């Protein structure tokens, strides 16, 4: 975005209104993108969940049910604006917006492609990690100001969870920062390569460990199962947002679905090479518009793949109890993240990026990861085939019959 401002304003000091206009423009674009994604993510999640449950999912509103999220949005916006008895008038109203701001603020530093970034802050990832902490404030406020003990439970659980899991997130990103030598998101991407074995995830076993730690911790940051205790539907109805209705409720869930994109995008940027296209250098990507567009697609593709994984994990696993969740964070993830940081530092020193041994070992890690994924894929295919055989035996035989066809 700053490049655009420079192009318009020319050299020399930039008048304030150019900067303000640029900020508003980028805020608008990002808000639009976040909204669109949040809505579509809610729809896609319901369809994926349904397919996993042998159901169909929403398919009535619009082609293939695509406008379901709009129908939900309209319904929620037109709902009565309820206020629980004894609520705190100011805090109850502003709590959702803290969550919203905390979520939307991270889009600023996300590099959608080579030149497509709202602001290439030189403290990029630090800024991202910091601003997601605003979410905690919003959740605690929402839970407390609802004047409901169940909401309070949800809020406090969530606060403990998010604050705790910021540490593994930070340390995993610290590995990446060490490898890059800087905090800016674009520089992190530039430090990686286009090919998979040049990604940071395959840089060393320790970086791979950091990647896994980041994924797990990001699930917890986003209140997704198996860490969705704060909004455990079976226990607390909706946790900290139980007492909210209408538009404020939408804002909370909007933040959760947009968070899907954020956690996957940060993982992509830090570990999976961001918008780097194989065989195309950074300078070339900056130079040509078509590479920029392709980079955007690459980024979106990688992010959406991770979003799919996150959704699938949600509908497969049960949720952890509070003390188990804390144990996972403090007793497992943080020590592993420590080891990952130290190991990455050692690896960097002993096996620099350009050395032959370094390259060879990166290839080994890449092959090992590929092997693991291949093993998972083989098991999936075997299960699929067994199920297909089982169901094909039943094909054509209806197991049940309409009761009005009783002989």
């Amino acid at each position, binding site marked *: 975005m700053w490049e655009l401002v420079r192009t318009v304003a020319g050299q020399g000091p930039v008048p304030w209104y150019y900067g303000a206009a640029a900020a508003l423009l980028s805020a608008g674009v990002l808000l639009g993108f976040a909204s669109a994604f949040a809505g579509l993510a809610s729809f896609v999640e319901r369809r994926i*969940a349904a397919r*996993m*449950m*042998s*159901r169909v999912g929403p398919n009535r509103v619009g082609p293939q049910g695509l406008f379901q999220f709009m129908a939900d949005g309209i319904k929620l916006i037109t709902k009565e604006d309820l206020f629980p008895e004894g609520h705190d008038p100011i805090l109850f109203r502003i709590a959702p917006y803290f969550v919203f701001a905390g979520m939307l603020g991270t889009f600023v530093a996300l590099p959608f492609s080579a030149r497509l970034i709202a602001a290439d802050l030189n403290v990029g990832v630090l800024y991202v990690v910091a601003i997601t902490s605003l979410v905690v404030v919003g959740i605690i406020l929402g839970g407390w100001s609802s004047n409901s*003990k*169940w909401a309070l*439970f949800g809020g406090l*659980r969530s606060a403990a969870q998010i604050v705790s899991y910021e540490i593994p997130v930070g340390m995993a990103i610290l590995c990446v920062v060490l490898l890059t030598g800087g905090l800016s998101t674009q520089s992190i991407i530039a430090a990686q390569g286009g090919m998979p074995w040049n990604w940071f995830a395959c840089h060393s076993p320790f970086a791979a460990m950091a990647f896994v730690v980041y994924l797990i911790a990001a699930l917890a940051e986003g209140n997704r*199962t*198996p860490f*969705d*205790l704060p909004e*455990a*539907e*079976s*226990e607390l*109805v909706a946790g900290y947002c139980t007492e909210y209705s209408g538009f404020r409720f939408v804002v909370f869930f909007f933040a959760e679905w947009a968070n899907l994109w954020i956690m996957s995008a940060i993982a992509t940027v830090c570990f999976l090479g961001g918008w780097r296209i194989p065989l195309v250098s950074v300078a070339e990507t900056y130079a040509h518009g078509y590479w920029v567009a392709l980079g955007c697609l690459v980024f979106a593709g990688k992010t959406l793949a991770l979003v799919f994984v996150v959704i699938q994990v949600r*509908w*497969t*696993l*049960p*949720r*952890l*109890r*509070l*003390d*188990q969740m804390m144990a996972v964070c403090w007793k497992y993830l943080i020590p592993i993240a420590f080891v990952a940081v130290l190991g990455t530092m050692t690896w960097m020193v002993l096996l620099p990026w350009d050395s032959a041994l370094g390259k060879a070992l990166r290839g080994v890690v890449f092959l090992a990861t590929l092997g693991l994924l291949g093993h998972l894929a083989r098991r999936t295919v075997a*299960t699929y085939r067994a*199920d297909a055989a*089982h169901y094909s035996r*039943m094909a054509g*035989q209806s*197991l*049940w*019959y309409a*009761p009005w066809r*009783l*002989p």
Partner: protein
Amino acid sequence: MPAELKDLAQLREMALPIAGETMVNMGPQHPSTHGVLNFLLVTDGEVMHRAIPHVGYLHRGMEKLAEEVPYHGYMPFTDRLDYLAAMSANQGYAMAVEKLLGCGVPPRAEWLRLIACELNRIASHLVATGTMAMDLGAFTPFIHWLREREVINDLTEALCGSRLTYHYLRIGGVGYDLPAGFADRTLRWLDHFEPMIDEFDRLISHNEIFVARLANVSPIGAAMAIDYGLVGPNLRASGVDWDLRRDLAYSVYPECQFEVPLGRGYRGVVGDCYDRFVVRVLEIRESCRLLRQAFERLPEGEIQAKVGRKLKLPAGEAYARVEAPRGEMGFYLVSDGGESPYRLKVRTGSFSAMSIIEALSHGLMIADLVALIGSLDVIAPEVDR
């Protein structure tokens, strides 16, 4: 007022939290209490000090109603005692009346009763294990089980016209004979269903998180289980080898071969929530075995003994026990020679299961309470009748 009676004011004082405790109401409407049950939780943060149950939201006066309704007419009421195990409730009541009446049941009817009850047991355990998974956050296995249960519902609809509250059994037999093709379709469904149990196991039963949530949570020892009157899968999961179908056998169960799964501390301690879960999954498999045997050995014949439309039982009393999916259901029937029972008392498994929760609740976390209620398979209509 005698000293033992506590009035409401005294009780409220007892339950008042001390400083630092919170009193939360896990109210009658809650996604994971099974039915309309209320718990008053006195907690210190997440850890509970006491969980005081309040029941009675679903009290419909079934026992008082029995005194007004003729014997034949009370059968649909027994469906509603436990809507997920309606066939077993029907059977218990029918057995009590038949004991007092002294009438026998034709062999084909006995086998049909067995088929109905075992099919119902599978359906009930599907709900029990599925809701356990759902209460812990895994929604997918529950929906898979509902998909399987749809077939059972359709089969029973073909059998007796109803998907949930069947009124299939009658005094002296059953109400309808099998429709043509029923055996074939049920056996084909069993061929499809038994691998589905394996799939369910792969999906959730061995999942690390699931096991971590359930293993070593609220273990109930055998002595405590017997003392509190737990029955059925809860009792067997605590290690007590007792199954009414084998030990005080009724109907045609003596002629069948089946195992009785016991809790063995599969992943934790004997009698913890995971054992109660595994016992139910294993019982589903055993019921499939029983169904196959029943279809092989089903004899021809009548389906109901001749008992007359207006039934007057001789004076006396009878107590009949059946192994319902939630444990032993006991029907204590007292007759004074009239057209309706003089007194009918129904003893259900969930009643005792509900009473043990308060004793187990100290030191449990709220999330564990949800797991405990699910593992004990408490159903509100059984508790309140």
